[in-house]
């Protein structure tokens, strides 16, 4: 093993992140665009199987191992790091670029980790670097949201670590292989993975934290954490039934909350949970078709979601506004942003000739092949719901609806180029699905473009569009948020603690005198017996001690005799 393939794929990104602050603007641009491309080349040079082995204590570590699944995720992460950097060049703070490169590096480290210890290390780095991306917005809101984000993800990391230790003591191996939720250790590992996927009940971290990042920050964030979680679920828990139900919950949670939301980037954040729900459900079904579908959907999702967020980010960057109630009519002065946003919206809705059509259909098809009727009907309803909450709602309220009077131009060149690149990829993958199918983990026999499938999908989507416009009066935006599970730790928890503190301090104020008197009596008694002249602390003659021993032994003898 020589040359470029000997470099761990994540390494250049971490080294680049360290170097970035030391460089001038031009070198920074070259590095943050060049490194992801270098990593992309390395990913395709790493040989299949374990390519780096270490021994730690008596355990075997495999920090770099590759197969088709690792390569698929590594590829899309590298492409994402490139396009994200391109989009961020003119606007992101240096700290954000550093954090984003480390974030991409951590995600790539995870997908090439052959053992659980390496996985945990990159898992924690992923949590820290993504928190730093949130904080890079440098606002009060981002500081608070970043802290809440960090707490949830450190909790996930601790669960994962405890699970890994349990797994090692059960099996004696650190290698990352497929597991089943059959022991407390495996449940903890699964829980740690699911927290990063945005699964209930801790899904609120995602719409809470991501939209507080900068316009470019959220583009990076949308890609790595949740999809790294999808990757580890694909590798670690294929076919775990519980994932089907968790996935379905996420799918509908995302739709309902996005329908109620007013902030354009929070709409898209809820829709990340919705889309990851499709993937989690596919992993739970566990057939080759559904696993392929989940992997393919993660790939296409990263691209169209980043495109949607670039479009929303451009609007935020140019107008400083993020609420649907403040936006509208922007298509007149931001034509390119509008078109790219619509391409992203059509892709997420699985419109024929876009990338979502060739990936999401595989998951529904797998449910049909396994005769899972209820799941199939729910996934089909959810597909219609995606068009409703993201496919039409986002472009309609941001670019059309009422005229807000805002006339910002399209964003600067680098941001436009990043959007054009990803819009092109969305359509290219939709037109030439075999490009993606060729690199999926299992062989693909699925043909997405049959006349029946295209017509059925068009019926489903266009009639859900009709429902949107008919129900439009009920979808009018209001200045509201919707309470989520995070209410328990943002409101109920702090309030309960405040209440307890109040009660205790009131009690303390009332009882202070009594309390001090009791404490005084206690110390007086202690002093009486144990003080310098206390009976128990006095120096006694040896003779008196011997006398007491004789008396005790005498009592013992008498007691024994009887």
């Amino acid at each position: 093993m020589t040359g470029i393939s000997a470099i761990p794929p994540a390494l250049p990104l971490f080294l680049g992140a360290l170097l970035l602050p030391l460089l001038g603007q031009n070198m920074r641009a070259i590095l943050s665009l060049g490194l992801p491309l270098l990593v992309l080349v390395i990913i395709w040079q790493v040989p299949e199987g374990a390519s780096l082995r270490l021994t730690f204590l008596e355990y075997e570590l495999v920090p770099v191992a590759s197969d088709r699944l690792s390569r698929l995720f590594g590829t899309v992460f590298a492409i994402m790091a490139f396009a994200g950097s391109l989009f961020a060049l003119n606007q992101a703070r240096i700290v954000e670029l550093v954090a984003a490169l480390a974030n991409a590096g951590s995600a790539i480290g995870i997908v090439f980790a052959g053992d659980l210890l390496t996985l945990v290390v990159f898992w924690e780095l992923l949590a820290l670097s993504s928190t730093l991306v949130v904080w890079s917005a440098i606002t009060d809101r981002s500081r608070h949201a970043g802290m809440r984000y960090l707490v949830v993800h450190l909790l996930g990391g601790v669960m994962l670590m405890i699970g890994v230790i349990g797994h090692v003591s059960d099996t004696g191996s650190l290698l990352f292989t497929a597991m089943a939720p059959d022991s407390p250790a495996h449940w903890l590992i699964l829980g740690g993975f699911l927290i990063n996927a945005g699964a209930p009940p801790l899904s609120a971290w995602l719409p809470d934290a991501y939209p507080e990042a900068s316009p470019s920050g959220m583009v990076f964030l949308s890609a790595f954490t949740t999809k790294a979680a999808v990757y580890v679920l694909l590798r670690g828990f294929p076919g775990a039934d519980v994932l089907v139900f968790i996935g379905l919950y996420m799918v509908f949670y995302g739709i309902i909350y996005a329908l109620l939301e007013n902030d354009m980037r929070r709409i898209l954040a809820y829709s990340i949970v919705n889309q990851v729900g499709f993937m989690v459900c596919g992993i739970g079904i566990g057939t080759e078709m559904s696993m392929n579908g989940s992997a393919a959907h993660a790939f296409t999702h990263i691209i169209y979601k980043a495109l949607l967020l670039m479009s929303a980010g451009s609007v935020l960057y140019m107008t400083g506004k993020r609420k649907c109630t403040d936006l509208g009519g922007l298509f007149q002065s931001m034509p390119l942003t509008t078109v790219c946003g619509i391409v992203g919206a059509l892709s997420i809705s699985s419109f024929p000739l876009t990338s979502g059509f060739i990936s999401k259909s595989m998951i529904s098809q797998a449910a049909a092949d396994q005769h899972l009727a209820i799941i199939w009907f729910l996934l089909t309803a959810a597909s219609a719901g995606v068009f409703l909450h993201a496919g039409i709602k986002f472009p309609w309220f941001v670019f059309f609806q009422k005229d807000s009077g805002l006339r910002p131009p399209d964003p600067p060149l680098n941001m436009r180029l990043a959007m054009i690149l990803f819009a092109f990829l969305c359509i290219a993958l939709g037109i030439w699905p075999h490009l993606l199918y060729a690199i999926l983990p299992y062989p693909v026999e699925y043909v997405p473009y049959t006349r029946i499938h295209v017509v059925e999908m068009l019926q489903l989507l266009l009639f859900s569009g009709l429902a949107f416009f008919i129900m439009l009066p009920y979808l009018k935006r209001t200045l509201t948020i919707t309470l989520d599970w995070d209410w328990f730790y943002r409101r109920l928890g702090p309030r309960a603690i405040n209440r307890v503190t109040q009660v205790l301090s009131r009690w303390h104020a009332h009882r202070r005198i009594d309390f001090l008197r009791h404490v005084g009596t206690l110390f007086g008694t202690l002093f009486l017996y144990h003080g310098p002249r206390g009976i128990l602390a006095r120096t006694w003659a040896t003779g008196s001690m011997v006398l007491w021993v004789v008396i005790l032994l005498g009592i013992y003898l008498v007691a024994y005799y009887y």
Partner: protein
Amino acid sequence: MRPHWLLRHGTIRLLWIVFACVLLLTVLAGLVMDVHGYFGIDGTFAFNAWYGFVTCVGMVVIAKLIGRFLHRKDSYYDRD
């Protein structure tokens, strides 16, 4: 100043007519195809059309109901 051509009443009317025609076409296209569903009902005429419409209306209604209980002003957490 005249509004953008996309915002004129005539254009919007035209868009609705085109949309209605496309909807009709997708439904009629089902007639000339040999649709065979996996679970029975999904193979019937225009299933995806009415199913997409009805479930979307259902999701909006459910969202509104949930919103009644869970909506708060968007400054709700600002005093944290």
